[in-house]
């Protein structure tokens, strides 16, 4: 039991980063998702069978928990008819004053560019570059085949480069 706590604590920083990515860099939502995922692991509702490394298992739980939370929010928004209100698609980075202070410009560009990728591509790139996962481990977390994860990785990487390059050129032109 104590070992489980220790494992969770050991991966807490990485888990929070992954939860942020799954919640589109919404810190409050990421915190809730992370706590819920921890509770599931501790309750035994999510059991680690030892077939993969623990971090991959934990990230899978966090991803599913984030997905459920996102679905619940969508249902709640539908029932409250808030979807009928005109709300432009929110960018991945919350443009709060605090976010502007905390994030530097490079990170904000990266988050904005990641927001333009598909969810699979974004997740694969995050796991590989942010969490130093191998592509096979990333595929394990995402529940897809290695070949599929590799395709998402290559395409996402090329797309991300293109977006970042365009933004850089646009910024230079603006100057």
């Amino acid at each position, binding site marked *: *039991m104590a070992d489980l*706590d220790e494992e*969770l*604590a050991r991966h*807490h*920083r990485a888990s*929070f*980063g992954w939860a*942020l990515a799954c919640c589109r860099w919404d*810190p409050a939502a990421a*915190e809730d998702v*992370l*706590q819920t995922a*921890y*509770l599931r692991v*501790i*309750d035994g*509702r999510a059991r680690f069978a030892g077939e993969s490394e623990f971090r991959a298992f934990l990230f899978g739980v966090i991803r599913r928990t984030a997905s459920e939370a996102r679905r619940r929010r969508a249902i709640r928004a539908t029932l409250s008819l808030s979807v009928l209100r005109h709300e432009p698609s929110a960018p991945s980075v919350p443009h709060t004053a605090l976010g502007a202070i*905390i*994030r*530097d410009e*490079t*990170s904000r560009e*990266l*988050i904005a560019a990641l927001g333009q990728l598909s969810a699979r591509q974004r997740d694969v*790139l*995050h796991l590989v*570059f*942010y969490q130093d996962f191998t592509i096979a481990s990333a595929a394990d977390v995402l529940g897809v085949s290695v070949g599929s994860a590799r395709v998402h990785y290559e395409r996402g*990487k090329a797309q*991300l*480069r293109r977006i*970042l390059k365009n933004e850089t050129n646009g910024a230079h032109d603006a100057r």
Partner: protein
Amino acid sequence: MQGDDDLRARFRSLANEDASGEPPFPRERIDAARRTPHASRAFRAWYSPGGFALAGASLVAAAIVLAIGIVLGANTGYASARLAGDRQRDEMAAATSEVKRQITAMRASLARVRSDLARRARNGDDATRASLVFAESELRSMEASAERIDLDLVDRRSTPAPLPPMQLVGFPVKRALAITCGALAQPVPPPKQGVPVVDLPAATVMTRETFGGILGLRQSSDGSVLVNDAARRQITLFDTTLATSTVVMDSTPGTSTSYGQFATALIPFLGDSSLFGDRPTQTMLVLDGRGRVARSLALPRRLDFFAVNSGPSAMDAEGRLVYRGMRPMPGMHMPLAPQTMGLADSIPILRADLDFRRIDTIGRIARPVMKVMTQPTSDGKIGSLWTVDPLQSVDEWAVLSNGAVAFVRGHDYHVDWIQAGGSAMATPKLPFDWKRLGDDDKARVTDSVRAGQNALLANGYPQAEYGIFNPCGAPATNGPPPGATGRAGNGGAPPADMDRSGCAQVIQTSYIPAVGGVPARAISQALPPFADLIRAGPVADYRAPIGINSTLADRDGNLWILPRLSTLSKNGELVYDVVNAEGKLFERVRLPAGRAIAGFGKGGVVYLTSGDRASGFHLERTKLPPRATSPK
């Protein structure tokens, strides 16, 4: 992965920034969660005392509303199935009162007819005893039907609508549900496919007298019937039972009731009256419903006298006379040498306004090019033979009882209409089992037509469309038309007796064998055979759907078309396509075997002819079975 260092650096920078905002590991919360089982947490989260209170309050409110609804519904009758049933029964009673009144009137009529029959039976008329017994049985059947209907109406009034087997009175919701479910459980009749085929019932009444050949009839509004026996040159008035008859016009010359020397059509005129051509004066006599001459009427153009009597002439909705015009000819002079000449390939349909003395052409019907051959006959006289190509498609026409004029187009079997209001329209093609003719079929048809023509010529030209000019003063050889021509009470297709220069007569009969298989009359003065009578043009790829004289108009606003071919004819019966005024083929009527239509009465009454030429023809009356839906 060497080239990905830039991306990796960006992500690491992002990770470092995220780490600055990382929350502490929630160890206390995890410990607390470990001390509290998941089930109790979930219970507290979702089934709090407030939630219980809310759910309980909702249930109580729902029960109260339901109880109030049930009480109000049961006591006030609002939305009550019982009240709805009462309303329905009231409406039904109002509707059936009219039926009851009609039944009462029908009973009175039945009583009168019964007393009439009894009186006749007492008179000891043995000849009509069989028909009287039959009529008596029919009367009993009708009375039984009337009693059944009456009893049914009484039962419906006295008994409420059937309830479901459960005792549900007082529970409107349940009752309504039960009634709805019961209604849904009723079997739904399957929709009918295709055109229904109606077998015309066997005749219920038949004349004892025979006729030489019926050329149309007219049923008056009182049920009596004027029958035009063109073969015997008589017009006979029958009563409603067809049992008693009175000859109102006969062949005796020189009297005021003389039929005349030639077969003449009986053209329906206004009301019960009819037009009857008076050949010497070339005017039209107006006969009333009893066959008496009321007055004479001059046509706007005297030369049209023969045209009026050559087709199914009738009156339109405006009281104008619609008739088939004569085929335009290149000239009235007939060459004396054997030769042929082509004539127009269509015939105009004319409309004469008898008040304003105007004639206009309202349409044309296709007729194959006619050939006329003139040569001296064997006895040194001059004869002209008119022939048509029987292999080409033709159009037909008829005036419906509502005044609309129908043109049945033979090339594609559709109907063009001039409605009673004057508007023209075309309705879609009628269904027909088209038979494609291959080259072999065409050759076979051509050969058979030629062989048939030669046989006809060798036997004196029966059943051919022809004309013979007799010499001046020669005894009239134009006999009566066949016993049944297929035309109805509107006059039919009489022989057009033409008088040229006062000394020549022309006889025209249809090439198409008379309906019912009655042969045309043979000519006594036979011409030598013309081996080259018909130069049949290219045979059409499809067999023509209709022939000449194939349309009839009944008294109920329908058009009856006799197609050349019908797979529904089991034993040689005639099967008619019946088209309503909207141009819809709504039923096919199969006649009893060996019968042909002689005319129509109102309400689906059909007059038929039966018999043969040797023993004479009988007139029969039958009635179409009631239709499930109105043909409109």
